[in-house]
């Protein structure tokens, strides 16, 4: 597995929304979702061909479910595809993501306004409600 020392960002073979003046992410999570995807390709977890297939499938499924697909829901499709590929490759399965999402929610709720929100590893290891048994607990 590779970590921090990845190559420069590759040429993303898929488009990202922007405005008439150039690159823009409307919200930070959109940029983070893209960066995670680039990082996962860089780490060799999946290929851009895998990604294109997953994103196309997510878009097609959303259209079939009634999404007019005018561009404003693009990053929703992106996250759907990202979660699907992370689950399929095993790097982040639903249960893990759920657990971390709960931990983040708890972190926001306990952090005063204006303070950096930090995830406590304890939240993730034991769960926020004391009911979680980690599959791979150690230390």
């Amino acid at each position: 597995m590779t970590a921090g020392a990845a190559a420069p960002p590759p040429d993303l073979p898929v488009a990202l929304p922007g405005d008439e003046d150039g690159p823009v992410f409307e919200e930070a999570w959109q940029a983070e979702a893209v960066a995670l995807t680039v990082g996962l390709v860089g780490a060799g977890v999946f290929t851009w061909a895998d990604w294109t297939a997953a994103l196309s499938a997510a878009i097609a499924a959303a259209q079939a479910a009634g999404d007019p697909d005018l561009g404003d829901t693009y990053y929703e499709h992106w996250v759907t595809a990202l979660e699907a590929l992370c689950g399929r490759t095993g790097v982040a399965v639903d249960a893990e993501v759920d657990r971390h999402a709960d931990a983040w929610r708890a972190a926001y709720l306990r952090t005063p306004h204006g303070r950096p929100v930090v995830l406590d590893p304890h939240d993730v290891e034991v769960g926020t409600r004391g009911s979680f048994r980690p599959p791979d607990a150690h230390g």
Partner: protein
Amino acid sequence: MGHDHDHDHDQDQDQDHSDVPPPLALRVKALQSVLAAKSIVSEATVDRIVDAYEHRIGPHLGAGVIARAWIDPAFRERLLADGTEAARDHGIRGLDPGVRLVVVENTADVHNVVVCTLCSCYPLQLLGMPPVWYKSAPYRSRVVQDPRGVLAEFGTDVDDDVEVRVWDSNSEVRYLVLPERPAGTDELDEAALAALVGRNAMVGVEHVLPPADPPPAP
């Protein structure tokens, strides 16, 4: 959703804590921390990539390639023969060797337009983030069926005797349009030419226009 009275069971406006992000943002945060905890994609990597896409990469990079092709015939030849290699030589970073960059040249006889009908493949490394319309379903389908109609909506006239070619990108090939150099720009240097080249021209939905004001007298 759908309750006829908006009963907020999280009555917490008066509590001093941070707002929990909306569900999608929270999912992305969770994915990020799972992958960081497993040392698959570090936080530093995510930060670096975000910074690059937000600040470093944009249409000015592609415009530099186009301007050089206009003034350097040997570079133009190389760019049309092997776009990936020529762009890399020009200093475009991060080009994926597994994805071919194909540069298609507009001429007096041919006008090229780029689309990705399947999703939204795009030469991000040269153009940055594309506009919303590029990845919208209407553009993706209509530019194939009625390219002249779509071009007209961009205010772009293409004479009837000019052939319009639509190039459908995919995960192995991305396209960049080499627009026609506008008339009256013989005096301009490479940087001044690059300033004329907009993203839409490199996607093929607009022409490159001559400078609005004549260049200052030498």
